[in-house]
């Protein structure tokens, strides 16, 4: 009898150890930028010396503003500025001692009318070359060379295309008028799209070559489109006040707002302005600021049908299925739908009357604050990848464009002249 009891005891006792562990959820990782050292470019001939400064400035800005890296201050570098660019020539201890995880070395040379850049990326701890890439561009455009090389580094780490060769549009105040410019992602190389009169609320064309926008050039707000170097052409009139255009993700349609006396409604049309269709129909209320979901099936917009401006979504086909999205705050405006589909960024006025940027998760409704206690921050525009947000901020005194990560980190001003900027698009 003792033996069966003993067997039973031996078998049963360990079951206590098989009891399940409680499992706690941990999310919200602190994604820290990778400490990156970027050595000043070496020039292999005299012709490369002149564009080197512009190239260097653009490369440093690209790495700093993309949110992926913590670019280490060159004042702290221990290695000689003339140190070589190959693994055998580099004293990796010097870079490790300043906290660099990765190191970028570049060389510039001129070949006729072309400026050539060779970039090497090293892992400091292993002392190993990870990436070697060369690009050539017109010698007149050293910043473009920097953007190409930065994209190669970005893609090496993230396996995604970087933002550095994309374009933005923005409005800049010019006396009593407002002009629209198309520029590189960093605001440089700006070219006029609509200069003279009052031109506002631009929407970048899907191919990045121009913009659709609202203009008062004929006395009342109407939609026009223009490419750099071409005169603006009328897009939609409807005989009334038309504003706030947004292109669909496939570029084949536009959404906009038409004001008619006491109300304003959201309409859609083909990209050339034909086939206009009204989506909202609310007497005495204002519906405006449409933005497309990345699949093109829904549109988010602002409506005051609940008594104050809030954000709603509806079907882009016929305006059905209207659903209110924001329930916190009493003044929510300028929505922009992330190309990833999960978030809508918007401007809101909080209980302290400060304008700040927020995102709302479309599925869960969770609202996340992106800016705070830094002047007024408005008019968000997601980058094509959805990883970054372009916006305007008065934190520096004047309204200036800034870029930050989609979760509100790494807020960096665009390296352009001070002025009064507004309503950027990306």
């Amino acid at each position, binding site marked *: 009898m003792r033996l069966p009891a003993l067997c039973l005891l031996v078998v049963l006792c*360990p079951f206590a150890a098989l*009891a399940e*562990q409680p499992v706690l*959820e941990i999310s919200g990782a602190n*994604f820290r930028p990778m400490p990156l050292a970027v050595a000043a470019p070496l020039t292999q001939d005299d012709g490369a010396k002149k564009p080197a400064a512009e190239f260097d400035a653009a490369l440093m800005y690209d790495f700093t503003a993309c949110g992926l890296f913590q670019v280490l201050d060159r004042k702290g570098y221990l290695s000689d500025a003339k140190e070589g660019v190959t693994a055998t020539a580099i004293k990796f201890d010097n870079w490790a001692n300043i906290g660099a995880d990765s190191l970028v070395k570049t060389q510039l040379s001129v070949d006729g009318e072309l400026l050539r850049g060779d970039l090497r990326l090293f892992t400091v701890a292993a002392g190993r070359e990870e990436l070697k890439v060369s690009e050539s561009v017109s010698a007149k455009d050293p910043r473009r060379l920097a953007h190409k090389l930065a994209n190669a580094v970005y893609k090496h780490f993230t396996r995604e295309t970087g933002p550095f060769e994309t374009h933005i549009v923005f409005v800049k105040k010019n006396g009593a008028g407002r002009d629209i410019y198309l520029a590189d992602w960093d605001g440089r190389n700006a070219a006029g799209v609509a200069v003279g009169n009052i031109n506002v609320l631009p929407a970048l064309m899907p191919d990045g070559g121009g913009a659709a926008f609202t203009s008062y050039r004929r006395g009342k707000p109407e939609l026009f489109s223009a490419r750099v170097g071409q005169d603006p052409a009328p897009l939609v009139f409807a005989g009334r006040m038309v504003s706030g255009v947004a292109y669909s993700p496939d570029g084949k349609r536009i959404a906009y707002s038409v004001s008619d006396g006491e109300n304003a409604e959201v309409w859609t049309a083909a990209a050339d302005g034909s086939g206009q269709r009204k989506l909202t129909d609310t007497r005495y209320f204002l519906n405006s600021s449409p933005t497309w979901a990345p699949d093109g099936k829904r549109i988010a917009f602002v409506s005051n049908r609940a008594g104050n401006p809030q954000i709603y979504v509806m079907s882009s086909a016929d305006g059905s299925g209207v659903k209110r999205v924001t329930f916190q705050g009493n003044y929510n405006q300028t929505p922009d739908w992330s190309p990833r589909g999960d978030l809508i960024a918007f401007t809101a006025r909080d209980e302290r009357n400060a304008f700040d940027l927020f995102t709302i998760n479309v599925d869960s409704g969770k609202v996340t*604050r992106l800016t705070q206690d830094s002047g007024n921050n408005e008019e968000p525009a997601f980058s094509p*990848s959805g990883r970054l947000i372009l916006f305007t901020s008065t934190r520096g005194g004047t309204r200036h464009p800034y870029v930050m990560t989609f979760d509100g980190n790494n807020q960096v001003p665009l390296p352009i002249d001070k002025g009064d900027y507004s309503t950027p698009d990306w």
Partner: protein
Amino acid sequence: MLSVAGHVVVVVLGLVLSWVLAGPKVELDTPPIKATLVRLGKPRDEKLLPRKEEAPPPPKREAEPVPLPAPAAVPIPSKNAKPEKKARDERKSLFDALNKTARAAPPEELEGAADGDPHGDAAKQEGERYYALITSLVKRNYDVSDTIPEAERRTLHAVVAIRVGTSGELLDVQLKHGSGNALFDSAVLSSVKKTAPYPPPPAHLKDGLKSNGIAFDFTP
């Protein structure tokens, strides 16, 4: 008969020992517990837009004593000195008046709950308080390199199991479920180790945390 029974016992013992050495079982399909530690404070009106959660301030250092200034030498007034006393008195009275009306901005009151925890970092409490406390502590050390590709982040998922002693000492750490990304696995293990020693568990959790331990389900 006795020999057969003996063989059975040895086989059973062998099987049982192998189960015991494998450790407590982590059910990966069971939804993890979400626990947040509410800070001590006033609840925020739910109709208001959220505020950004700030990291708790570092502990204050004791200020070094400020040396008293040496007394100023009193000038010997000259026979022909002009009376400046009146101008100085006017300036002083103006500054005193301004100082009386000036008020320092009141420190911002972080929202929480009346019964919140001084170490809390969230506006709302969820779950068992001890679990919420250690979740909050591990999160502070949850640093991951930003270079992990975006596409990969969405699917990253790792589970780390620990056992905690009665005084909060870290007894054991195991990666129960790897994410497939070495950087992420290294980061989650590091976050759990850096948090040690943990706060001493309360009486009703001591034995369980020492014998079975607890697991953390990490997602980015």
